[in-house]
């Protein structure tokens, strides 16, 4: 589905990736894990064509990422991507205007389900509600690839649960969903695979295979995320 080949990326002097290669398989829900500032968001943004790699290439179903792949990718916007004056209704309309694949009816019913009032100003919503709005808008596009960057960081357990259910209800196994997170606990049962970004490479593993080895996904992650003792420059 998504292949990343020899991708490098730098911000100023800070090298984020120096020749990263990996493949995200189709029809999977994949957890993108790794320490803070390891490059999870950068990677998602490169797949979404929001950032460009310095070297290497990223392909979605064989096509090089660019303007024409954008319509196949739904990247979750952060709450601050919406203007302060916008109401829930405006955000829904914004998606409707921008994306032909947006399922407006679905969005409306999910807003209702999530207790998001159409006339509420986004800036006055709680952080959790803002995030829920962003998740639901992202999921209401009909595309083969969804990218969610730390979608549930600010949610309380009940909202987390609802958001996960909404995600499952919205997909049928044909779509690929990549979710970056530093919280494994609430999500590991809905990850088919995890990808751990590390300073010196990347680890991919099938979650069921990890469990078959008698280890929890969290234990596996902690064992492999590595070098946390090193000072981060």
């Amino acid at each position: 589905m998504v292949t990343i080949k020899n991708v490098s990326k730098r911000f100023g002097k800070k090298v984020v990736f120096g020749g990263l290669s990996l493949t995200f398989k189709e029809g999977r829900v994949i957890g993108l894990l790794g320490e803070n500032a390891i490059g999870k968001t950068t990677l998602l943004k490169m797949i979404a064509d929001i950032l460009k790699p310095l070297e290497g290439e990223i392909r979605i179903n064989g096509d090089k990422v660019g303007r024409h792949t954008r319509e196949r990718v739904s990247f979750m916007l952060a709450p601050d991507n919406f203007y302060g004056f916008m109401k829930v209704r405006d955000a829904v309309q914004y998606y409707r205007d921008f994306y032909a694949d947006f399922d407006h009816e679905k969005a409306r019913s999910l807003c209702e389900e999530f207790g998001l009032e159409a006339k509420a100003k986004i800036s006055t919503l709680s952080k959790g509600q803002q995030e829920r709005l962003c998740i639901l808008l992202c999921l209401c596009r009909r595309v083969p690839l969804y990218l969610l960057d730390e979608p549930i960081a600010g949610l309380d357990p009940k909202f987390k649960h609802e958001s996960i259910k909404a995600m499952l209800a919205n997909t049928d196994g044909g779509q690929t969903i990549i979710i970056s997170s530093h919280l494994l606990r609430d999500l590991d049962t809905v990850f088919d695979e995890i990808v751990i970004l590390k300073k010196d490479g990347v680890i991919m593993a099938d979650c069921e295979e990890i469990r078959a080895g008698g280890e929890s996904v969290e234990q596996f992650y902690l064992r492999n995320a590595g070098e946390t003792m090193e000072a981060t420059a």
Partner: protein
Amino acid sequence: MKFLENIPIYVQIANDIKDQVVAGKLADGDKLLSLREYSLAYEVTALTMQRALGLLELEDVVETKKGVGSFVKAGTQAQLKVRSIDALVQEFMARAANMGLSKVEILDRVREAIHQGGTEHGDN
């Protein structure tokens, strides 16, 4: 359903469905829910649910008719009941032995428990 962390989820789901058959919630010949319905009910991905149903097919508990759905295979209920009772007894025996009980002692304790008016109406 709350899953154990270090056993594959698809195995736990397959076991749960087998438990439903043993408990009579699903009978021989019954149609199972669709993959999608199960995936929502258990809150797992379609892939995990596919694996669970695949395992049940492999174990001859379920048969899938193309385009129609999956069904509990004939004779499954009786067979599973025997299997799960065997497993229960074996586990009980092993644990009792671990606690240092002899076979005679185990038998005595079970008899005692029954005489004390044990559960006639198992609630599972």
